[in-house]
């Protein structure tokens, strides 16, 4: 057992899979000697050599396009996009090709790639370094979008993503990269994709979130418990495809639901969850579904980013309002 932060867990998951499969290559900007700006790939070039771990020129579209070409010929490409804010010039390659290659060729060519990117706010970074646009990727048919919220889930889900035969966008909540350690066995064991994780059972209200916001969500559940409100907490983990059944099961039990995400509200992933509940769980609902989210504004520069991001208090307030709803 090892005591790892999330960034360490990611680093070790990568190393573990690199050892297990010679066809895996890791690349991106500054992932080699420098080991990534967050050190996710620290030591990997030393262990696996420049042939398998290397820096590319500064060109996100070519990085992802190249991954697709590699994957089509039997490699497993793990590309790092330095920050999610710099993934947009590669969206064309992701949407038009990575997500479509299998379908386009009726399974003849496939695209087992993992695109890793740190995402989310709260670390006092400059503009464009606090993006959380997972909903844009969740809208794209053919992708998986996976977001861990703890070191252990980062380890197990990243391994699952690498082993998955289809393209995975793996978004790493950088705010909690170093926020606490967890005991992890470096056994190469994957966690299931396409499934939620119930992190806390409860009967009064369901709180759904993912990534770094799990922290505030779990804290809110704790404080709500002190007020006698027993919240069930769900980590969505795989954003796409959505494991709606687990959420429905929970909401059918609790009758109330709050969805928490950092991303802008309009057309965020919260909307999809709410829409599905409104269709499939409407008779169970005892109160309107609330979304506690970022606003439809640009994430403010860091002096004011705390105003933008959902706080524990906002979640609690919303939960109490929901509980009081008649």
């Amino acid at each position: 057992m090892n005591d790892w932060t999330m960034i360490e867990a990611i680093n070790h998951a990568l190393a573990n899979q690199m050892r297990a499969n010679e066809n895996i290559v890791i690349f991106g900007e500054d992932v080699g000697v420098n080991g990534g700006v967050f050190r996710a790939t620290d030591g990997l070039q030393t262990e696996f050599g420049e042939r398998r771990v290397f820096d590319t020129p500064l060109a996100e579209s070519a990085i992802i396009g190249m991954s697709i070409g590699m994957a089509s010929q039997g490699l497993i490409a793990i590309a790092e996009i330095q920050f999610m804010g710099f993934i947009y010039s590669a969206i064309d390659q992701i949407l038009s090709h990575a997500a479509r290659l299998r379908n386009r060729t009726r399974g003849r060519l496939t695209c087992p790639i993992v695109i890793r990117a740190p995402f989310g706010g709260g670390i006092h970074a400059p503009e464009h370094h606090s993006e959380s646009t997972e909903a844009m990727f969740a809208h794209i048919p053919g992708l998986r979008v996976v977001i861990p919220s703890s070191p252990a889930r980062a380890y197990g889900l990243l391994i699952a993503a690498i082993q998955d035969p289809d393209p995975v966008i793996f978004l790493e909540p950088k705010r909690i990269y170093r926020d606490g350690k967890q005991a992890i066995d470096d056994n190469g064991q994957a966690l299931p994709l396409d499934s939620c994780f119930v992190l806390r059972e409860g009967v009064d209200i369901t709180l759904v979130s993912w990534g770094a916001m799990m922290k505030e969500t779990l804290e809110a559940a704790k404080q709500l418990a002190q007020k006698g409100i027993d919240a069930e907490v769900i980590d969505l983990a795989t954003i796409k495809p959505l494991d709606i059944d687990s959420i429905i099961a929970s909401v059918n039990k609790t009758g109330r639901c709050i969805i928490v995400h950092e991303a802008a509200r309009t057309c965020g992933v919260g909307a999809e969850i709410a829409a599905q509940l409104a269709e499939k769980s409407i008779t169970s609902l005892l109160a309107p579904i609330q979304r506690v989210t970022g606003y439809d504004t640009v994430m403010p520069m860091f002096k004011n980013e705390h105003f933008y991001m959902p706080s524990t208090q906002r979640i609690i307030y919303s939960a109490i309002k929901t509980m009081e709803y008649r």
Partner: protein
Amino acid sequence: MNTQQNLNIEFSQYLDINGTLLKPLPATLDNEELLIALYRLLVLTRLFDETAVNLQRTGIIGTYAQSKGQEAIGTAIGRAMLADDVFIPYYRDIATQIQRGVSFEEILQYWGGDERGSNFADQPNDFSLCVPIATQLCHAIGVAFALKFQSKRNVAVVTCGDGATSKGDFYESLNMAAAMHLPALFIINNNQWAISVPLHQQTASKTIAHKAIGAGIPAIQVDGNDVLAMLINISKALEQIRQSGKPFLIEAITYRICDHTTADDASRYMDADVLQEAIKKEPLIRHKRFLSTQHFWTEEKDKALYHDCQQQIDEAVDRYQNFPPQAAGDFFDYMYEQLPADLLEQKQGFIQGLKHHE
């Protein structure tokens, strides 16, 4: 400061527009069978093109992009490549595709709006046609990486048009291929037009080949209407890439003597006189003259060849038309290796509701 104006890129040509040989052919090409085989491919592509346009006009396939006048490029590429090289084409490369195991009926399926046309039965590794301009160049460098990683001595061969050279993906790919020493051959079909936009509005670069310089890639211009020059230079480039492991670029100079696609009307923007001049330089006439003067090619043989090619195409059209349709729900099945739960539910809903689709 304008030193670059002094830089000339080599231009290669073997046959002039009258089919006269300008310099001796290398020994490997002094082979009548091969020379006729090349001609056959030119004709086959031309006839297929005409057939496909007719099929579009009668609604049997959808929008179609011809290669008319540009057949020498694809013919030479297909001939020069090894079977286990990988081809990453764009939509004017039928002449290459048919040499690499892609069937005419697959090509018709593709333009007929059927994904199965890209599931090549006899070609496992090549890419299918790429629509978003220039994106395929990025795939090519990934393929080249994989070939090198697997210690193969193969080359990723990728094509695009002159318009494509304005896209960021074109440049990013060239630059990355050279910086990372990847065995990729970039072949640019410079047919002087990107739909209605002429080359001089596309770039102020002296030539397209000059664009390789900023990536540090050696480049050459070739007469793209001269199948012999194309074949010789592609072969040479492939050999050089296999040796060096480094990329190369060929600008093939040709002319689009047809509409951009069947959805286009080139007469809106293409000068008729210029077009007439261009037609005189097209590759079939030239190669036929060469065969006539040097290899006793007769009108009779020519007729027989045309007839034979057309028959081959007609048979393919028949097979295409008799192909059973895809099952209605097939479009769900290839999104992922396994249908995820949400998509399975959608598929079931679709199947149940099939009656609601008019």
